[in-house]
Structures are given as C-alpha cells and as structure tokens.
C-alpha cells in the first residue's frame, strides 16, 4: 500500500510531465511547419512578383525596341527621302521669298532627322550592345549634358565583365536617374563611377544638385506619383539589387549595388 501510493504519484507526475512535453513539442512543431509553409508561400509570391516585374520590364524594352526601329527605319527613311527631294529643288529658279522658305524647310527637316535619330538611339542603344555598359553610360552622360554648363565625369571600373541581360536594365536605371537629376535637381556637375567589389557591382552617381533622400525615394516610388522611380525600383528588384540615396548639402549620392554572379570573361582584365 505504502509503495503503491508513491508509485502512483510518481507515475502521475511522469504522465503529466509527458503530456506537457508533448504539448510543448506539438506547439513547436506546428509553429515550425506553419513558418515553413509561410516561407514557401512568401518565396512563391516573391518569385511571381519578380516574374511580373520581369515581364513588364521586358515588354517595355521590346516596345522601346520596336518604336526605335520604326522611327529609325520608317520615319527616318521617309525624312531622309524628303530631305533628298527638298535638296533636289533647283535653288536658282526660286525667288528670294521661296529661297528663304526652302532654306527654313531644309533646316527643319535636318533637325527632325537628327531628333528622330537621337530618340531612336536613346530608345535602343547600339553602343550598349556593341561596346558594353561602361561605354554606353559614358556616351549617354556626355550626350545628355552636351551644350549645357554641367560638368560631367565618369570613372567606370574596367573589370566589370558585362552581362547583356543585366546591362540593359542597369543602363535604363541610370538613364532614368540622369533624366530625373537633370529635370528636377538642377546640378552643376555629375559624376558616374563604378566599382567591382567581390561579387557585387557598385554604381555611384554623384551630383551637386537638389537630389532625393532615401525617405523621399521610398515615398515617391511607393506613392501614386513617381512612375520613373517606380520603374527604377522594379528594375532594381529584377536585378536583386539595392539602391541607396544620400543627400548632403552640395553632394547627393545614389548608390546602386547589383549582385554580379557571372564568371569573368576570359579576356577580362582581372
């Protein structure tokens, strides 16, 4: 009887302890499984979002390509033909008034051809395809600031191996950012530099205008306005990169970090 009671008490304690441990274990396993499920769902959602962004960016790129080709091959050809016809008119048979009109028309036509070519090149950069990102960025910066008082400078890392898929996206990001800087910040100088650090490409845009802070970028890119900034954010997401805005008096910085996991080209300088 004596031993029986103690035995029963100890058994009851062990049963209670076992039950409690089972409860704890069940709770932990349930939460763990739920978290795993949630992580899988999040991952799937993120992948889906990335695919959507990628599709949007790609379709936008294709559309740019198509417009550029149409402008260059069709509108450009018509304008060139019109120029040939216009220049074919014998000037000696024109009176002074018509000569003036002819000169004016020819001038406007040449200007139109130049503009169409410029727009077409902007939409579809041949330099990027033929000479790579560094050359395309240098060319774009100098071309954009041509005829203005803005001082430009580029210091791009030659070790960047290049990746056609990423380069076009990066090029568009910088293009959009430079357009924004010129439009809103009113800078006196712009500097673009890049640096390959380990497996990352760091692209830095410095200017002395009235740029954006990180908070302002977040606010605009997630807000209803700021379509350009939204595009930048989408493209950065697509590249699995990050962008950081720093605003200090007289020096604004935009730091873009892109993971560069592709191997270096065999003829690369590294």
């Amino acid at each position, binding site marked *: *009887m*004596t*031993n029986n*009671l*103690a035995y029963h*008490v*100890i058994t*009851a*304690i062990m049963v*209670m*302890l076992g*039950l*409690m*441990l089972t*409860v*704890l274990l*069940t*709770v*932990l396993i*349930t*939460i*763990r499984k*739920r*978290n795993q499920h949630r992580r899988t769902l999040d991952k799937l959602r993120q992948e889906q979002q990335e695919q959507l962004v990628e599709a949007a960016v790609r379709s936008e790129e294709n559309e740019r390509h198509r417009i550029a080709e149409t402008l260059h091959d069709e509108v450009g050809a018509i304008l060139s033909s019109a120029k040939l016809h216009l220049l074919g008119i014998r000037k000696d048979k024109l009176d002074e008034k018509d000569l003036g009109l002819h000169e004016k028309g020819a001038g406007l036509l040449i200007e139109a051809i130049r503009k169409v070519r410029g727009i077409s090149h902007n939409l579809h950069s041949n330099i990027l395809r033929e000479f790579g990102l560094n050359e395309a960025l240098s060319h774009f910066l100098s071309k954009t600031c041509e005829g203005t008082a803005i001082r430009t400078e580029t210091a791009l890392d030659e070790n960047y191996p290049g990746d056609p898929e990423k380069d076009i996206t990066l090029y568009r990001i910088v293009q959009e950012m430079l357009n924004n800087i010129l439009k809103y910040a009113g800078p006196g100088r712009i500097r673009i530099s890049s640096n390959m650090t380990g497996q990352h490409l760091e692209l830095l845009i410095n200017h002395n205008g009235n740029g954006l802070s990180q908070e302002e970028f977040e606010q605009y890119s997630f807000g209803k306005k700021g379509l350009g900034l939204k595009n930048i954010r989408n493209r950065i997401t697509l590249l699995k990169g990050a962008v950081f805005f720093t605003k200090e008096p007289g020096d604004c910085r935009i730091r873009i970090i892109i993971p560069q996991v592709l191997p270096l080209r065999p003829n690369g300088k590294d």
Partner: protein
Amino acid sequence: MNQLLKEIQRWLEVWPYLLPVIILLATPNGIRKSGILGWFIAGGFLLSFLSTFTWRYGALLPEQLRNNNILYNLNSILRTLICGYFIARLSFLASYRHLYWSGWLFTGFLLINFIFFDSVFLLSTRLHAAESIVLLTACLTFFLHLVADDEVRLRQLAAPFIFCAGLAIFESVSFFVYLFFYPNLTTDYKLSKLVFNISRYSYAFFIIMTGISLIVQFRMEKSKKTASAL
C-alpha cells in the same frame, strides 16, 4: 565534495535565482524593463531564501519563526498572482477574459480556503493544487493561441514562450506532488522526500528558464533598438 553537492541540493530553490537576479542587475535599466517579472524574481528569491534558511538553520531562530510553511504558501500565492497576471497581460491574449476571471476566482478561493479549511501555518495542498490549475490553464491558453493564430511568429514571442514552458513543466510536476503531499508523508517519508525533490528540481528548472527568458527579452529589445537607430 559530497557535502558540498548535498549543500547545493539543499539550496536548490535559492541558487537558480542567481541567474535572473544577475541578469536584472547587469542589464542597464533591467529591473524597470523586466516589469512585473522583476517583482516575481525579487519576491520569489526572498521567500525561497527565507524558507530554505529556516529549514536549514531553524534551530538558531526563535520558536515562532521556525515554521517555513507560511513562506511556501506565500510563495505559491505570489507565483500564481504574478505569473498569471504576466500571462494575462500579454497583449495578444487580451481577448481571453477567463485569464482575468481565474485571478479573481483564485483570490476568492484563498479567502475561503484560509478562513474555513487550511491554516496558513501548514503547507496548503489545496492552495498548491489551485495554483497549478490556474497557471496550467494560463499556460495552455498561451500555447493554444500560438497554434491557433496564423500570424504568430515564435521569434517575437520567444521570451514569454520560454517562461511559459518552464512554468508549465513546473506546475504539471508539482500538481500531484502537492496534492498527495500529506498522504505520501504519512505513509512513506523517504519516498515522499524523493517526490518532493522532483518538485524542487522542476522549480529550479523553471527559475532558470525565467532567467533565459529575460536574456532573450533584453536581447530582442536591444536588437529592436539597434534596428530602429539604423
């Protein structure tokens, strides 16, 4: 060596408190940040120390101070009210009103029990059993909520989870220990001592878990602070 180990075992209900006490004192503003748990640790430490001291050195004390049963009863009341309040005050458990009612029911039970049934100078098995029921209900409510709520992230609730896990294990062990304390004591002293020791070990485990929960809580607060500063 053997004597030292025996002495350590005798003070089993006291030295585990050193972990939470050191954490509270070593952390800047630790006592303030710990909230009501700080009171539980301070009160529990004092009562456990006094009860063990009375047991060990009772012969040196005046006759009326040799009884440590009242200290055990007081510790049980302190544990029930503070731990129950701590769990009931967890923001996501606010909708479980029975946690508040159980506190009032326990207070009512205390009055009835000590006025009509038990003496405060004797170890009240009813009190300890009631304590186990109240606190096990609170802990199980907490665990069930963790399972039921899809939005719960264990990482955010790691500190209360560790505390409740320690408490639930201690209470599930001590429920039968105290319920059959007197029948055991009268039938087989040696075995009753062994059973009581099981409860003491689980109590030490609970206090250590409380210390760990404080470490986790302070670390999380620190990392939150660092993240918000960045």
